[in-house]
């Protein structure tokens, strides 16, 4: 993506964009006080925040220019993402965002201090208030990142990522709420400021994007705050990116729903609550299993809506083999075919995923088990389905999951001399000559 553009061009582009942003700002200002008023009222609660945001945005633009050189890769990517929004205003927004993103990552570390100053400087120019959306988000993102960095550069963001604990949820909720608020404000502002565009999709999208950004920022902030005591290492850069991406996606969805109108928003929950056609099947499985093996053999069970509504059973390591055996030999279940077996490294635990099929009843079931990541060990299923032989070897080879009572557990792909388990998330390639 970045290869074709040389630095000069990038710089130029960044400059052009910054200019466009400024222009847009001015235009927005001229376009009338009415828009401003509306925005102001809508955003009253977080006026202070917005001011800061406006300042941050301006700053971000300046920074971005510089940063563009170093971060040639990130910027174009972000740009491409948004390129289709062809309105000047939208472009400005995109630019601001791209810049902010590029900047935030590295700049946050180096310029944590200078940012607040710059803000203060610009704070009095409150013209950008109603411009809000594009600006606010860019800034907010930058800010959030900085804050996050300051609070505790590493682990916290990641910790949040991994286990969706309270903090995460809180952050998400906050992000959503904010996004919603922003969306409202935006919609109002836009309706006034740019009456002609209001109708079309592209606008709505732009709004949504803007909102999403604000949300991402908010989320990151919340995460940073909530997460002072994060955990496992890894690279914070990535974790942060994840957090941002997630928040954005969520916020975008929310914003879109909102933009489309209340009716749609109302639809979504209704849809979710509709029971899956496979619900009775799952109930049957669970009932039969609990009748024969006891109440507490299953850790969890649910319908996986993303996976064609497959009934999913989560076994405990101690009951995994027992349940598998039961699934195969029970008259009513009769899962005679193992379709797939593999492991997944979820960083805090390992998971083995087994997809079974019953030719007798034409039904599928997914059986999962969570394993201790430090010592992933589980019974082998080879004695039940001979077809699980090589897949278990593969899981052992690539993830280091040991299968007890396996007839010939060996490193089927890489060979016995290989060091480490490549599909683990913390894998470091080992080469004696390096």
């Amino acid at each position: 993506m970045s290869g074709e553009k040389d630095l000069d061009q990038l710089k130029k582009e960044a400059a052009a964009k910054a200019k466009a942003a400024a222009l847009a700002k001015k235009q927005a200002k001229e376009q009338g006080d009415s828009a401003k008023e509306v925005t102001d009222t809508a955003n009253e609660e977080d006026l202070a925040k917005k001011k800061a945001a406006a300042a941050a945005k301006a700053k971000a633009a300046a920074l971005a220019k510089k940063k563009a050189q170093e971060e040639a890769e990130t910027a174009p990517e972000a740009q491409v993402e948004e390129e289709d929004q062809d309105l000047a205003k939208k472009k400005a927004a995109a630019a601001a965002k791209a810049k902010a993103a590029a900047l935030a990552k590295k700049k946050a570390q180096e310029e944590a201090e200078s940012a607040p100053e710059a803000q203060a400087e610009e704070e009095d120019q409150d013209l950008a208030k109603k411009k809000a959306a594009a600006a606010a988000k860019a800034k907010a993102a930058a800010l959030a990142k900085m804050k996050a960095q300051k609070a505790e550069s590493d682990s916290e963001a990641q910790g949040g990522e991994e286990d969706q604990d309270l903090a995460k949820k809180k952050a998400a909720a906050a992000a959503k709420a904010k996004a919603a608020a922003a969306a409202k404000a935006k919609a109002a502002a836009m309706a006034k400021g740019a009456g002609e565009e209001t109708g079309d999709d592209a606008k709505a999208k732009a709004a949504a994007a803007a909102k999403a950004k604000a949300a991402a920022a908010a989320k990151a902030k919340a995460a940073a705050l909530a997460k002072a005591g994060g955990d496992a290492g890894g690279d914070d850069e990535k974790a942060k990116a994840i957090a941002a991406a997630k928040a954005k996606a969520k916020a975008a969805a929310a914003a879109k729903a909102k933009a489309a109108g209340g009716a749609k928003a109302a639809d979504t929950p209704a849809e979710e609550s509709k029971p899956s056609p496979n619900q009775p099947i799952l109930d049957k499985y669970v009932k039969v299993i609990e009748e024969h093996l006891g109440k507490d053999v299953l850790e969890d069970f649910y319908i996986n809506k993303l996976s064609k509504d497959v009934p999913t059973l989560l076994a405990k390591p101690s009951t995994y083999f027992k349940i598998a055996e039961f699934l195969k030999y029970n008259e009513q279940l009769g899962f005679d075919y193992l379709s797939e077996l593999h492991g997944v490294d979820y960083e805090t635990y390992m998971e083995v995923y087994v997809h079974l099929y019953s030719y007798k009843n034409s039904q599928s079931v997914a059986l999962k088990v969570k394993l201790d990541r430090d010592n992933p060990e589980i019974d082998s299923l080879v004695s039940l389905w001979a077809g699980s032989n090589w897949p278990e070897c593969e899981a052992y080879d690539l993830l280091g999951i040991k299968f007890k009572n396996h007839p010939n557990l060996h490193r089927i792909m890489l060979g016995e001399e290989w060091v480490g388990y490549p599909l683990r998330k913390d894998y470091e390639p080992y080469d004696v000559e390096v």
Partner: protein
Amino acid sequence: MLRTEEMLLNVGPQHPSTHGVFRLVLKIDGEIIKEAKPVIGYLHRGTEKLAEDLQYTQIIPYTDRMDYVSAMTNNYVICHAVETMMDIKVPERAEYLRVLAMELGRYCSHMLWWGTFLLDFGATTPLLYAFREREMALNLLNELSGARITFNYMRVGGVKWDAPEGWIEKVKEFVPYAREQLKGYSEFASGNEIFQSRMKGIGKFSKEDALNYSISGPSLRSTGVKWDLRKNEPYSIYDRFDFDIVTQEAGDVWSRYLVRLGEVEQSLRIIEQACEQFPSEGDIMAKVPKIIKPPKGEAFVRIESPRGEIGCYIASEGKKEPYRLKFRRPSFYNLQILPKLLEGESISNLIAILGAVDIILGEVDG
């Protein structure tokens, strides 16, 4: 009493009849195989690891290189998995193009198998016939996608290119020709008594064994299991076509041969119907976000490839790259039964049995 000694015989990984870098370590007693130990992994490229750093669209070319004689089904399975997660409705025209591409791919795959399988028996002529027809089908796919083997044709939400002008007509013309040729094959090859006697009764396994060993595709159907995901769990638009599931009862090499040739005929039927139903206009891409981010969660889908059940598992964290990607590769699963099949067989049947499993090493090794 004659006393014999066991010895080790290494087959592959560069043996021409292993169709790729597959190695077998045989323990033989005279001409009888006592034990066979497959060694794989020579072509392991770590696709699943690589995919964790790639966006979904960027992964599609990697799937071309998995089962490289039927890349269209591989393209499809990952797109299908993502579409399932994101609940994307693919436009009708795109679905037809996908089905045409996949069935032409199946035709090519079975033709290649047929030619090389008979080549393993020492018949060089069928290979030339098979490749002649396969080349025609590949030309059609080339016109569609711009590549002969590694198509990279499908995208999440549709296909990359629309059919060029007159393409459907060319496909329509191809079908009767291919059908005619297929008849010729049975006359000069399948009807040959020597072939038949070399294939019948060897490499046998029962229906129970097939299910126990997670075997799928033609090998499974050769034991009498009437099972084809295109019919039993219809995906794409396969429920609109009239075709049969070809089965045989014996479960030996000869049954697998007949099942595959029968499937060629069925694929031609599907192609014919798809050409007739082909919508004259319409979109080839659904409206999808520029950056594809399936929601957080996991999904496993499976479809019918020429070699059996190919599946794709995605664990997503809501990012543009998958958190974990896993392919259920039919060749990998189907090959597991080989040591059992070879035990006690004469070494002269080794290549026939291996050939009938129809493995592609790019897929076995992932």
